[in-house]
């Protein structure tokens, strides 16, 4: 279970969740989920080795979002100005902190975090007390030039603080009650911004540290997965995605030469396929040609001829290299998050957020554009390797996922399931697209990209298991038949060894199945609207589910969804073991 943390041993939440699922009070689930979410890190604790890191991530996370949204509203400069207003806060220094500071901070805090989370489980209010205690703005005038880290550790040294929480989010709000009369709201907001920025910086630093290991040449990919599950900062996303999906090498010494080779491979492939000697597969070419202008028609980026040509080359090359599947509508959607993400790599920092509006050749050279194209091609290839069954003849992968979704909803929310049966709503009528396009049609592009941070963390192609393990295990006879068969004893030992092997393979693929996790995400997505849906008839239901009000979802809603999916998956993993 390296990748995903489990919930089972850490908190009562899963049990409550389960009880809830039988007694159905969505608000309860909501609140549990929310608390679970805010203590996201709980999930990480049981993952073992480094609980502190995990905690850290998730909490940092919410701040990171705030920072992001601030970023999009205001500008980097305004943060800068804001800082000067809150000189009392020791936290402000973090905004000017850099990577190495944050690393220090992290290590100096680590042993404290255990306590924090122990408290969290038993008594929230205790933690809140803790929050309040250190908050009084110790006027650390002398610490001005130090990173926040130092502030935190010094406080604990001197016993001024009982809490390691100085670096955590939400402080300003709690703080407000104490000192609201002392500070203007403006100052408080600034402070919040600074803290958000602080944690963003911290998070960026953590990714920096993982991507540039100080000892050894290997990027710790499992650590990277853990961290990325909760979202990847935009600046790191291109390199992180390349690693997570198994395209870039984790060996940093070889990384760039291998990348170069793959990019050259792509160029060669394109040259070959579009050379005179090569007969064009016209039906495929035609199909892609008509779909390209219809890809993300509302995003300006995809209207530039330059971009359309790139995508067309990628899709065509992929299609003819994968004749069993060929090009299937929906794959044109799947390439775009990659393309857009890899473009950001070459945009100036201030323009990265506008990647969906800028014509790429404003900033990118021809060669860079081809690199973006090559990276998108290889990552698309890696992604589709995991879900080939979705696109081959008859689309068995999708049919299976839709069926699994139905069974899952039957277990999790039988009221909704029964209602659907009564109204003759069939899952395939709305969920086919969810599977075929990985819910991309349901969310805005930036939310899809955030979702893929998790999806790519959730699945792993660096093990060889993904495709190989699944096919044979499904055709295995059940245990009992083996035991009952004549000559059992001998065969039993043989087969049990065989089973062992299969089992291991299955165990590895357990953490590598994108399709499986996606089904849980779809279940969480559907159940989110359970209350509304139960009041709807067939037409209303189908109409609603074809245009769910989720295009405006924000990152926190996406993350809640992913967390819920994660919970369902941990709760129902036994029930769904036969999926593999």
């Amino acid at each position, binding site marked *: 279970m390296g990748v995903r943390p489990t919930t089972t041993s850490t908190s009562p939440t899963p049990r409550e969740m389960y009880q809830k699922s039988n007694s159905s009070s969505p608000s309860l689930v909501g609140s549990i989920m929310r608390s679970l979410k805010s203590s996201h890190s709980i999930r990480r604790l049981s993952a073992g080795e480094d609980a502190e890191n995990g905690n850290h991530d998730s909490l940092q996370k919410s701040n990171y979002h705030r920072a992001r949204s601030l970023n999009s509203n205001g500008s980097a400069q305004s943060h800068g100005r804001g800082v000067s207003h809150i000189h009392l806060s020791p936290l402000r220094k973090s905004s000017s902190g850099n990577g190495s500071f944050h690393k220090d901070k992290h290590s100096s805090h680590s042993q404290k975090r255990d306590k924090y989370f122990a408290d969290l489980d038993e008594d929230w209010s205790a933690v809140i007390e803790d929050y309040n205690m250190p908050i009084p703005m110790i006027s650390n005038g002398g610490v001005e030039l130090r990173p926040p880290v130092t502030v935190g550790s010094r406080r604990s040294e001197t016993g001024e603080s009982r809490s390691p929480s100085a670096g955590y989010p939400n402080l300003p709000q709690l703080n407000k009650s104490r000192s609201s009369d002392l500070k203007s709201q403006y100052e408080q907001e600034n402070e919040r911004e600074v803290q958000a920025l602080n944690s963003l910086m911290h998070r960026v630093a953590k990714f920096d540290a993982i991507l540039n290991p100080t000892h050894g040449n290997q990027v710790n990919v499992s650590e990277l997965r853990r961290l990325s599950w909760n979202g990847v900062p935009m600046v790191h996303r291109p390199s992180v995605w390349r690693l997570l999906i198994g395209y870039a090498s984790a060996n940093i010494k070889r990384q760039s030469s291998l990348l170069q080779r793959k990019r050259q491979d792509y160029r060669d492939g394109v040259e070959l396929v579009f050379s005179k000697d090569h007969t064009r597969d016209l039906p495929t070419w035609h199909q892609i040609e008509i779909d390209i202008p219809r890809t993300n*028609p509302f995003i300006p980026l995809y209207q530039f001829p330059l971009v359309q040509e790139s995508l067309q080359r990628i899709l065509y090359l992929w299609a003819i290299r994968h004749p069993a599947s060929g090009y299937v509508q929906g794959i044109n959607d799947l390439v775009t998050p990659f393309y857009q993400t890899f473009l950001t790599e070459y945009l100036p920092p201030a323009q990265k957020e506008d990647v969906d509006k800028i014509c790429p050749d404003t900033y990118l050279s021809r060669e860079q554009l081809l690199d973006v194209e090559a990276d998108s091609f290889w990552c698309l290839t890696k992604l589709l390797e995991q879900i080939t069954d979705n696109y081959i003849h008859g*689309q068995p992968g999708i049919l299976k996922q839709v069926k699994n979704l139905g069974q899952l909803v039957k277990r999790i929310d039988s009221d909704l399931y029964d209602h659907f049966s009564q109204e003759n709503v069939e899952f*395939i009528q709305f969920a086919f697209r969810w599977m075929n396009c990985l819910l991309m049609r349901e969310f805005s592009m930036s939310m899809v990209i955030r979702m893929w941070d998790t999806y790519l963390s959730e699945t792993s192609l660096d093990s060889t298991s993904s495709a190989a393990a699944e096919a044979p295990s499904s055709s295995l006879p059940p245990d009992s038949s083996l035991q009952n068969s004549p000559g059992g004893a001998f065969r039993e030992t043989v087969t049990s060894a065989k089973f062992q092997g299969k089992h291991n393979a299955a165990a590895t693929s357990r953490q590598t199945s994108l399709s499986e996790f996606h089904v849980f995400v779809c279940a969480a997505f559907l159940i989110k609207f359970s209350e509304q849906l139960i009041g709807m008839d067939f037409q209303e239901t189908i109409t609603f589910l074809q245009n769910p009000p989720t295009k405006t979802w924000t990152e926190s809603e996406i993350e809640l969804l992913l967390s819920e999916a994660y919970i369902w998956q941990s709760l129902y993993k036994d029930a769904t073991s036969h999926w593999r």
Partner: protein
Amino acid sequence: MNTSVTSIKLVLLGEAAVGKSSIVLRFVSNDFAENKEPTIGAAFLTQRVNMGDHTIKFEIWDTAGQERFASLAPMYYRNAQAALVVYDVTKPQSFIKARHWVKELHEQASRDIIIALVGNKLDIIENGGERKVAREEAENLAQQEGLLFFETSAKSGSNVNEVFLGIGQKISLKPAQNAQDGGQGSSGLRINDDSRIDLRAPYGQSSAAGSCNC
């Protein structure tokens, strides 16, 4: 006197990008979008039309055109009372595909399904583009196979409503004829306003019992 409401379950079939979704969008919302995302699986829409003293409610399944999704189509046309088989008047290939769909519907769909053959994108020809599917060729097919036939432009809106009205007329005539024949009148078509046809109900069977012509 209550106005009766007839629900018609209608399915659209045809090659990718011939304008199936655009025809529906024009009919349902009187709108047009130049580049619509390809339909995946199928999309469901409804529209009511008043015809004389009663209302027809179209329940429309707009299917995905790409060949790979074709295995889903039977699910949508199996219990349909009407089908639009759409092609693009500037794409001969799409007309070949249309022939295939007509054949498949005659073999697999409900026996008395009403099929309309629809040549779309007429606006391209009106604006100087080259017609690649002759009107006569399509008319011949329609006559041989007993289809309604229309040429439309979802972009300009020309003739789109007529397709649906044509289907509505043909279907609402049927129960009346049946009634004259001896009382199988309702045949599951005339239903109350707030109910709808059960998509899984063996519609074909019940009507076959009364109105089979063979």
